């Protein structure tokens, strides 16, 4: 039973993409995320970087789930997406109250988070 009509046959064709291609894309995305976490001092850009890294991990899980093959990789990715959605909600809430205190979203301005 296919989910969509055009998904009746396999999309991934033989002798074309290999698992390492997807792993290389994931490595590139993680290094972009590391660059953003180190360089950027804007709190929202840090959340962008974290999201990029989380997406790269999801891509690796799906690639190995297709290769093994096992549906548990897809189940893990569903859990991972839900958890990062919760993380973004809490992170944005923290950014909003920090903006209310400091009138800025630059994390170098956050001298003390205690008050």
């Amino acid at each position, binding site marked *: 039973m296919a989910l969509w009509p055009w998904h009746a046959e396999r999309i991934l064709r*033989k002798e074309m993409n290999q698992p390492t291609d997807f792993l290389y894309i994931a490595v590139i995305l993680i290094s972009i995320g590391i660059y953003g976490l180190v360089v950027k*001092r804007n709190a929202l850009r840090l959340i962008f970087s974290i999201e990029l890294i989380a997406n790269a991990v999801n891509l690796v899980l*799906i690639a190995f789930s*297709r*290769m093994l093959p096992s549906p548990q990789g897809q189940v893990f990715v569903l859990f991972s997406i839900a958890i990062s959605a919760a993380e973004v909600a*809490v992170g944005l809430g*923290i950014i909003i109250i920090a903006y209310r205190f400091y009138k800025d979203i630059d994390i170098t301005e956050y001298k003390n988070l205690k008050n």
Partner: protein
Amino acid sequence: MVDSIFIGLSVITIGSAILSLESRELLYGGIALAVSMLGIAGYFIILDAPFVAMFQIAVYVGAVAVLIIFTVMLVRAPNTITKKETRKRKIAGILLGLAFLILAGSILGNSAATQLKFNDTVPIFDVQAIGKELLTYYSPVLLVLALTLAAAVIGALALARREDIEERNEPTN
């Protein structure tokens, strides 16, 4: 060898990932992040996981990106490029990212993972298989995940609550 769909998706995903960090306007950065997540959903489709791709589009592009864009509009940052991002820090960040890229790339290129191949004779996992896993073996995880999501949303609401407005509405003593 990769095919043209893969190359196109790679250009879209990595290009908009870089753009989301480097764009001058924070709002355009949020939109570029949403486009990058759409590219990841495209990878999921060519990896025969259409349900996860739909979930990714619904959650990331539909909820997370919209939440980020609303936060960008709410905080109204006057200067998105600060003076704290010095040239030295930028060079250090680029070097660190490149070091990780070269390290992980060379490990990947020399490992046995290059011998792995996708198999064409395997069955496609559809919604039925995923739902069976979710409701039998992983059902406790699903319940805990529901509690986690509820707690996170309630916590975010409690964090973003404004106490000064409530004090004005309530008669003091």
